[in-house]
């Protein structure tokens, strides 16, 4: 039986797709057969971040409507074994997703995969509800900023009431991933700290991903940033995956780099 994990946030543009891509890639790198599904029907972009946009023939909606079978629609990653992508439809809208249809596809995937990562669209409407309904666990992606934290709290409420697990009186296990973190601004008192956000949301902290231009470079080239082990976000996503798998990893990149006197003189 696969574990189904939704990557969700409420607020748009906080880093769900970036996180989904790196999370799935990291799990596959560590030997776990993983599929990542784009639930953002109509606005797909996971395929771009994963670098497989030219290989999309059939998509998630085609499988739901039985116009194609899973074997035809699953895109096998070229770089990493064990990693598959199920793209969203670009021409349909969220109404093409039915709860029963999504359930059937997830069940079929469960027979073959260890992890199913669901990249949720923004918002708390149908698309987002579909992405979370069957989830066993949730990764709530949050930016250290008031509206994002508030939306995350709303999403936690919805996870606790509108999911299959909630209906059965069980809990969806929640994890927090705080992204676009800028330690120097936190040090200046201008940005909510990781402690602040943890205190407010009160859920398990799975990772803190620093703000970095390496993320844009990664998406420009269609390579999930976790594969760039020379970048801070890449390493931070790697740690996140290890923690998810039960390893003990201290959080890194939380402190502003102190500029020494000499470095300052040298303009470094």
């Amino acid at each position, binding site marked *: 039986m696969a574990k189904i994990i939704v990557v969700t946030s409420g607020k748009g543009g906080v880093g769900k797709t970036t996180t989904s891509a790196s999370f799935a890639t990291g799990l596959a790198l560590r030997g776990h057969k993983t599929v990542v599904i784009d639930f953002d029907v109509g606005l797909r972009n996971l395929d771009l971040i994963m670098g497989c946009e030219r290989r999309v023939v059939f998509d998630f909606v085609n499988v739901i409507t039985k116009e194609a079978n899973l074997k035809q629609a699953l895109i096998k990653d070229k770089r990493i074994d064990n990693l598959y992508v199920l793209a969203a439809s670009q021409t349909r809208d969220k109404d093409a997703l039915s709860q029963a249809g999504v359930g059937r596809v997830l069940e079929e995937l469960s027979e073959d995969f260890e992890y199913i990562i669901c990249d949720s669209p923004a918002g708390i409407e149908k698309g987002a509800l579909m992405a979370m309904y069957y989830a066993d666990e949730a990764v709530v992606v949050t930016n250290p900023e*008031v509206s994002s934290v508030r939306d995350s*709290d*709303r999403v*936690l409420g919805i996870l606790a*009431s509108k999911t299959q697990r909630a209906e059965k009186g069980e809990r969806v296990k929640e994890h927090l991933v705080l992204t676009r973190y800028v330690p120097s601004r936190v040090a200046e*008192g201008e*940005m*909510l700290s990781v402690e*602040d956000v943890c205190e*407010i949301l009160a859920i398990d902290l799975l990772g803190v991903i620093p703000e970095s231009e390496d993320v844009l470079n990664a998406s420009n080239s269609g390579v999930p940033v976790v594969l760039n082990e020379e970048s801070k976000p890449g390493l931070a996503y790697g740690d996140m995956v290890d923690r998810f798998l039960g390893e003990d990893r201290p959080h890194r990149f939380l402190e502003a780099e102190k500029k020494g006197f000499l470095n300052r003189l040298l303009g470094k």
Partner: protein
Amino acid sequence: MDWLKLFRGEERKGSASLAKERLQVIVAHQRHSGRDHPDYFPKLQKDLLRVIRKYVQVNEDAVNIGIERDGELEVLELNITLPEHK
């Protein structure tokens, strides 16, 4: 600007602490009315309205329900506004 504070090395209070205070209020409110809000509330509200209307003609928004928590105790609060007598 309070120069003394700067000299004493006291931190100027950035906007992050304000953000945190505001969020604490918002989240407390949201959880009170959101996270544990029973799903049957909208239906209950509708049913109550129908029953009441058998006897008095009241407005759509005449029925208000909420949950008050007091420690372990939960109380269902019902507020029904009757039309004014002319």
